[in-house]
């Protein structure tokens, strides 16, 4: 009863082609990432852009008006673009291996641990960012650092 059914527009889809209005703000380079690379860099983005994301979310908390938080949103996007260019310059190969593995494996992190380890090591050595999972109970190792996890499987290779 709670299955999701996509809306079917029988007349077809309509796309708004007008650009962003210049009098509100000048346009900005959008992040062009697909979902798999974005998920790979999610934890590093959280650490690298913590201040800007916190500002943005606090501003969103005050009001759901989309016109009120455009400035903070632009800062978030610029920080993300900065991180992406740094990752491409330093750890491009390892990042690519990780997100390609995720892409063919339903975006499951536990199937791509070797590639993730290589990527995390490279990012730590070159950029100094670590992956941190909030809310892990004290005394437990985070699940991505466990030596013998119970859930493991051969990933589907990228073709």
């Amino acid at each position, binding site marked *: 009863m709670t299955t999701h059914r996509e809306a079917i527009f029988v007349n077809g889809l309509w796309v708004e082609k*007008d650009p*962003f209005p210049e009098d509100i703000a000048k346009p900005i380079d959008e992040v062009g990432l697909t979902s798999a690379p974005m998920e790979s860099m999610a934890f590093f983005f959280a650490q690298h852009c913590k201040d800007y994301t916190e500002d943005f979310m606090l501003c969103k908390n005050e009001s759901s008006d989309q016109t009120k938080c455009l400035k903070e949103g632009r800062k978030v996007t610029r920080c993300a673009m900065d991180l992406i260019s740094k990752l491409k310059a330093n750890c491009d190969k390892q990042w690519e291996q990780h997100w390609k593995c995720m892409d063919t494996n339903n975006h499951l992190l536990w199937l791509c641990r070797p590639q993730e380890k290589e990527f995390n090591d490279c990012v730590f050595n070159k950029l100094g960012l670590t992956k941190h999972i909030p809310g892990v109970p004290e005394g437990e190792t985070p699940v991505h650092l466990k030596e013998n996890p119970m859930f493991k499987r051969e990933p*589907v290779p990228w073709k």
Partner: protein
Amino acid sequence: MSAQPSVQDMPPPGGFPQTIKYERYLPKRGPSGVVLFGGMIAIMAYGWNEYFKSLTEKKELHREHQWMRINIVPLLQAETDRDYVRRAEAYKKREKLIMQDADPDWQPWDLKAPTRGIGKRGVFDLNQAEPVYHTERHVMPKHLFVPGDDGERLKSQWWRGSKMFHNNPRYHEREDFTKEHPRGIQHTPDEIISK
């Protein structure tokens, strides 16, 4: 009856030879009951322990997956906000153009602008103009008038025939489904073909 000696099927004198086993032979051997139950309980305890450990690990994996998604939210929300503002401004511009001859003071797509016809206490009165909402918080407009069918429209299911599922195509989108083989190439065993 006469007191004759009874005829019974007796063993031969000297007893049966050792090779014929006529007595019950149920030796006490193998593990005792305690050992059996203990072994069963031990195996089951191990299994249950492994199962509950897997549950905690599954919970941690879920935690990791959820935080991965939470961390991405500001990025996507900022992008969506910009897109929404772009589309909203374009819509308002279009609506203002349409209404400029009818009413130059028309506030397009604004539920907090005074609307002619809505009166105090919800009466219909063409001489009064009250906004629909009197609140301070932001209200999203619910209705949108998309340009008519003369505008350029995309196919609703534009992804049909695309390469989105190139690794595992849908059953009816596989390449071996042709006009000659509408149900795909059926692999029949050779012995049936030869008959």
